[in-house]
């Protein structure tokens, strides 16, 4: 703002010169914008809209996402500029004008064949590195058996009495310890479901007859929301679950609680509650009752 006033106070330059000053300032502003954005973000790579994730492997995925996004932004930006340049620069000047009938330029064509191949192999290499991390099966501290059914979940811990079940908006909440490798075995008893934890950048399908397995390692404690992502019938939209990440000692205490009579009773009551008529637990739905079961 101060600069503007200083320009105004100087003797008026000729008209052409003035517009040039304005233009260059506009250009400077244009260039400054992304630079400023970079500095403002603390010289870190932007998230491009994704979550950073709450697991080690999810963070690798997140960094891969950033890498892909930068590549896509550069390639897409350049291509878009080329398109817009062609559109602006080569507008028809007159109805009868016929341009030079160029049809081939082999070096150029080879260039835009080979460069994308190199980029693709670069992206593939990065993909393989992250993929190996995400699909790795380190020795787990805890194993969780996940059963998906229409339209709910049950989570059990082999070797313990812990059992969490619930359907639709009951959003059953199971617990896992932070900082430890948790192994999941995902299965379905009826149709295909999707196990999706958005804050973990992760999803897998639950397919009848196939045990879908993976291991991850949660970082921060807290409660996280998950839901079914693969269409599984009528109440697919509200097939929720939650995961609570706790410290390992809290987790031990939580599992031990199921060995007490009260804990076992509570689990039994929850299992019973999850079997009641679906219509009775989703009274606020905007829809008519579909008479499930």
């Amino acid at each position, binding site marked *: 703002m101060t600069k503007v006033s200083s320009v105004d106070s100087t003797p008026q330059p000729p008209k052409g010169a003035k517009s040039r000053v304005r233009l260059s300032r506009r250009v400077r502003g244009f260039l400054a914008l992304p630079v400023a954005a970079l500095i403002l973000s603390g010289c870190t790579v932007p998230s491009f809209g*994704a*979550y950073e994730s709450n697991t080690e492997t*999810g963070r*690798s995925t997140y960094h*891969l*996402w950033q890498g*892909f996004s930068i590549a*896509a932004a550069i390639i*897409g930006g350049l*291509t878009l500029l080329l*398109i817009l340049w*062609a*559109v602006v620069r*080569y*507008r*028809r000047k007159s109805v009868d*004008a016929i341009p*030079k*009938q*160029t*049809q*081939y*330029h*082999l070096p*150029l064509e080879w260039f835009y064949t080979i460069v*994308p*191949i190199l980029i*693709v192999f670069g*992206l*593939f290499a990065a993909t*393989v590195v*992250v*993929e190996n991390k*995400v*699909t790795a099966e380190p020795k787990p501290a805890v194993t969780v058996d996940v059963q998906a059914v229409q339209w709910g979940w049950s989570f059990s811990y082999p070797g313990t009495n812990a059992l969490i079940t619930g359907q639709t908006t009951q959003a059953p909440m199971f617990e896992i310890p932070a900082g430890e490798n948790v192994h999941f075995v995902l299965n379905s008893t*009826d*149709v*295909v479901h*999707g196990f*999706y934890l*958005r804050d973990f*950048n*992760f*999803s897998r399908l639950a*397919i*009848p007859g*196939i045990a*879908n*397995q993976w291991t991850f390692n949660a970082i921060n404690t807290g409660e996280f929301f998950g839901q079914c*992502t*693969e*269409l599984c*019938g*009528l*109440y*697919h*939209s509200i097939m929720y679950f939650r995961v609570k990440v706790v410290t390992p000692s809290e987790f031990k205490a939580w599992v031990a609680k199921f060995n007490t009579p009260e804990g076992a009773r509570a689990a039994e009551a929850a299992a019973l509650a999850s079997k009641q008529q679906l219509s009775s637990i989703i009274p606020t739905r*905007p*829809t008519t009752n*579909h008479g499930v079961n």
Partner: protein
Amino acid sequence: MTDVLEHAAAEGHSHDEHGHDEHHGPSGLLKWLTTTDHKIIGMSYTITSVIMLVVGGAFAELIRIQLMSPNGTLVNYAQYNELFTMHGSVMIYLFAGPFAFGALANFVVPIQIGAPDMAFPRLNALSYWLYLSGSITMLLGFFTAGGAANFGWVGYAPLSNAANSPGAGADLWIGALLLTGFSAIFTGVNLVATIFYLRAPGMTLFRMPIFTWNLLVTGILILLAFPVLTAGLIMLFADRHFGTHIYEVAGGGVPVLWQNIFWFWGHPEVYILALPFFGMTTEIISVFSKKPVFGYKGMVFATLTIAALSLGVWAHHLFTTGTVLLPFFSIMSLLIAVPTGIKMFNWIGTMWQGEIWFSTAMLMALGFVITFLIGGLTGIYLASPPLDFFAHDTYFVVAHFHSVVMALVFAGLGGLYYWGPKMTGYLLDERIGKSQFWLTFIGAQLLTFPMYILGLKGMPRRMANYPHDPQWKFMNDLSSVGAFLIGIGTLLFVVNIVYSWKRYPAGDNPWDAGTLEWFTSSPPPHHNFYRLPQIRSERPTWDYNHPDKKALAHGHAAPEGNH
């Protein structure tokens, strides 16, 4: 009642003695029912598939209205499942596919290669009747007691089995796909045979327009992919009604087999849809830049490469099943970006140093290029298994393929503005056309961009409501506004057709285009040509009209004799 297929002879030779007068046959409804003329069949395909676009679009608008509130009350869960299933099914099976390889292809391909008709005219007519009855079959589902099919357009087993989807709507869905599937297979046979056997003398394969090239490859892909779907559907039907257990765990079957079979058809199908629209765009950009297609041979090579790779990418839809070979499908899918990129740069190269005429058709083609660029780039993410793990079945995927298919809609509309005058003899109004373009273009971007963000924020697809995340309302509203703009644009198209009806006579070659269809009259006579120019390049009409402006030789930018 017998027609003789005959090549038109060289221009200048009168062939009146051979009886090239207008065809005499039945008229009115009977003419339509009994026609074997590829032009009338192509018109029927065009009209039917555009009606299906409007039907599928209406479903989309209902979906978008429902999603404008976290607790949408327009439809209930069951109706919502029916809506998006039928939206997807109508758009993919009844609009995009038939429009791609049945409508403009049927009309244009024989004329572009100087043929009097398709190779098997009666089979061609059968294709159309199967397509029409398939469309009716699918929509009949709404009138059955259980409603239309409601297991998603992919019909994943075991949700689509008799226990989980007992209604007649599901069986009608299977029946419709059998009918349209056979229709597609017959069209594929017809396209390949026509292009292999009915080209005019001098029309070598490497002198065919890119549109025809792409339809040849589409025809081959149809023959590779569609039988797999048909087989899969018959097995699904057997599971539902004859007690087999092909997709049922209970009897020793494998549910994931359906996903493999479906996508073994489904991903080549994406290219079956896309390649004809790529071809339309190529033709339009070349004509309205007044230049030959840049990198013609590279373009053909890219098309063939896409076809070859497309058979090895199906399981990138199955990454999250944990049952597929991740690196193989990842690299194959990533590699498809290369030929697609070649096409993208060839389109830019065609415009480069051209004299671009911004007609509605050209605007639509540009809309295609830009929207497809976005859809293509976001597709690259999904080829990477770890990224697919977090974007799978979220709105990111929905946004990705809606960018792609909206791009195809642009190309299709461009094709209608470009070839419409050839089909009817009358131009469409350019002012209405341009308003339609801008509405649809802004609408398409407004539709998809919020979806990308919603997907990254974790909104799964096929959700009737999202009470848990009311903060998604704003993005969903934006997306809905985009959908409404597209809807208004489509209405404008209908308005344009009514308004321009017999208003602007087109003449034979309104765009100064180069391929053979612009050499004959608009609409072309029975058996298409009274005379043909000498065919010495992929632009015989251009060479005839501008004998001193031939395309420059391979590898040369030599200016000699070109000014």
